[in-house]
């Protein structure tokens, strides 16, 4: 994986010292909270309901075991012994003290990590496919392109005060495991007919208040123009994105209101101009970055079959392991969704264990997924049983990847100052209900996503089943949505009708899954059945 050179290290170090100075000025009363707030936000530090929350960037979700150990140490040293993995492949700490933040950031910098641009109206951390470098279906490892863009976007002088936050995802396969088309820019690295690599640009997707699927505005940008094209998109957005209403300020609104065709014309015009401005790093830089993402030295002649005599282990393989490009290996998912647990939370001990396992069994690497799980990208099939036993003993062996219990949930009103309703208790009760009834085992792939407010950090529009918490006259109320997908068959979920209270929403989820079980044709997922039979039967079952 990527390693900092002295330049990268100097940039991160400078930011730590800058923030140390800013924190001191605030503590000394030389700055008001109004002046300080945007500065702390540019370092990922929020005031949440109970304390400060710090969001640490995990570039394209990739962590070395050393970095995962460091995240665990930070949880112990500066927080209350745990962290929360987010839907943008980052990690958040919930109980941070302002005065300790500079030291925390200094500790992060020692392992080549930071919290730069994890908040604010700027280009945020760039996300990617959690199976990058391992997936059997990828064209190429997408992470070097994400790293190229990470550097380009870091402290970009023109784009620090955009109309609104800006999220980029980079993938390189037909299958979309990173919700690419629900980003401000989604990039798919593709091969053209001549066998050359290039980038397809999808611009103007997003969730939040007005969810939209990004249209493709350019099918092939040559790799030596990638940064320039991204810069062109950002400039058009920075100049013309709406600033009169923060709810209409994301690029999706600009693309929608301008029309994809006219927006594309403007980008192309800017692009033609910027091509002469020397903003593109040479391909040698891309080659340099690529050299850090060489395949590990995989063994050959390995067995491709695991001993499935332990049925619980066999179930875990079937549910949590994904095909690898190299025979004898798989990518294994560590579920951070135990039954009744808090989605995405991991204790310091669990993080240490995941780091140790990554070191011993997965070439020193692990990945954070947008579904708030952790992936061991390269595990020998012959060693899977050992891995599973270790995970299982630490409460990390739940066999539920992409099942109803693998719920995405934002922190909600338990932690977040923006939330209108709690998300986590709903997730807990649903996973417990489906575990108790045993129905969870027969539903197959079912992506359930819960947000505690319209900002949609829990991706509810992209859930096969989505839940949106709202405030109805001072009490928590939950709307049910059906039919969303963040994958290559992307679609936006629709609201079924009136909302439910907490007990009611758990029942409602059971009602719609019961209908699915009664209606499904061979091999159909919940989403397929919904798409075939439509909303009406579900409404009838819910409100009939």
């Amino acid at each position, binding site marked *: 994986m990527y390693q900092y050179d002295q330049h990268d290290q100097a940039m991160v170090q400078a930011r730590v010292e800058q923030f140390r100075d800013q924190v001191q000025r605030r*503590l000394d009363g030389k700055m008001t909270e109004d002046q300080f707030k945007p500065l702390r936000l540019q370092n990922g530090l929020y005031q949440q309901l*109970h*304390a400060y929350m710090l969001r640490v960037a995990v570039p394209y979700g990739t962590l070395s075991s050393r970095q995962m150990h460091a995240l665990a140490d930070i949880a112990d040293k500066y927080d209350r012994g745990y962290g929360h993995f987010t839907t943008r492949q980052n990690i958040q700490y919930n109980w941070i*003290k302002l005065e300790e933040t500079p030291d925390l950031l200094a500790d992060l910098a020692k392992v080549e990590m930071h919290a730069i641009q994890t908040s604010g109206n700027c280009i945020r951390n760039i996300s990617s496919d959690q199976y990058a470098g391992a997936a059997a279906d990828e064209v190429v490892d997408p992470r070097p392109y994400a790293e190229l863009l990470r550097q380009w976007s870091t402290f970009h002088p023109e784009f620090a005060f955009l109309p609104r936050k800006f999220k980029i995802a980079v993938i390189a396969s037909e299958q979309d495991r990173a919700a690419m088309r629900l980003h401000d820019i989604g990039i798919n690295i593709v091969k053209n007919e001549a066998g050359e690599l290039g980038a397809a640009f999808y611009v103007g997707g997003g969730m939040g208040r007005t969810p939209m699927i990004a249209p493709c505005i350019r099918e092939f940008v040559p790799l030596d123009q990638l940064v320039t094209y991204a810069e062109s998109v950002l400039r058009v957005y920075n100049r013309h994105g709406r600033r009169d209403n923060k709810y209409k300020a994301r690029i999706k609104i600009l693309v929608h209101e301008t029309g994809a065709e006219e927006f594309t014309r403007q980008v192309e015009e800017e692009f033609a101009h910027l091509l002469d401005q020397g903003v593109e790093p040479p391909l040698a830089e891309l080659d340099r970055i690529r050299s850090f993402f060489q395949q590990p030295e995989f063994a050959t002649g390995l067995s491709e079959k695991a001993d499935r005599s332990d049925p619980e282990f066999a179930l875990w393989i079937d549910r949590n392991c994904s095909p690898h490009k190299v025979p004898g290996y798989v990518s294994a998912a560590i579920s951070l969704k135990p039954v009744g647990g808090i989605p995405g939370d991991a204790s310091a001990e669990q993080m240490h264990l995941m780091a140790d396992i990554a070191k011993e069994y997965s070439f020193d690497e692990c990945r954070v997924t947008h579904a708030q799980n952790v992936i061991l990208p390269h595990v020998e099939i012959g060693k899977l049983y050992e891995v599973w036993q270790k995970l299982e003993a630490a409460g990390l062996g739940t066999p539920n990847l992409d099942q109803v219990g693998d719920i995405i949930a934002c922190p909600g*009103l*338990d932690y977040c*100052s923006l939330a209108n309703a709690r998300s986590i*208790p709903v997730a807990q009760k649903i996973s417990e209900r489906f575990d108790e009834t045993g129905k969870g085992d027969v539903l197959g792939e079912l992506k359930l996503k819960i947000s505690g407010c319209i900002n949609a950090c829990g991706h509810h529009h992209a859930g096969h089943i989505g839940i949106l918490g709202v405030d109805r006259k*001072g009490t928590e109320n939950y709307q049910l949505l059906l039919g969303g997908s963040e994958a290559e068959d992307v679609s936006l979920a629709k609201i079924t009708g009136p909302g439910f209270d907490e007990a009611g929403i758990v029942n409602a989820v059971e009602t719609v899954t019961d209908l699915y079980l009664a209606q499904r044709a061979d091999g159909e997922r919940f989403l397929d059945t919904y798409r075939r039979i439509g909303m009406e039967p579900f409404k009838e079952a819910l409100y009939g």
Partner: protein
Amino acid sequence: MKILTGNDLRSGAVLWWTGNGWSIHIGDAADAGDEAETILATESAARRVNDAYAIDAEETPDGPRPAHIKDRVRALGPTVRPDLAVPAAEKVGWDWVI
């Protein structure tokens, strides 16, 4: 009743106005009455509290209960981590929040 709340600048912890200072226990919260705006201005200026604001609360035998669920969650801690709750939670119980 009107009670005042904000956060501690250094720790971010939730604070409640007691009548002559700030406490992390909502049970210590005092009615600020018509003085709310004055107290907020003075206390914020003196940097004894960050991001402070006044809220409506109901007077109950267990002490003041904020009108809005968000401030009740703030008073006790995350409902999903009772092990991390402020001590007041033991007294009033989690039903108090919802």
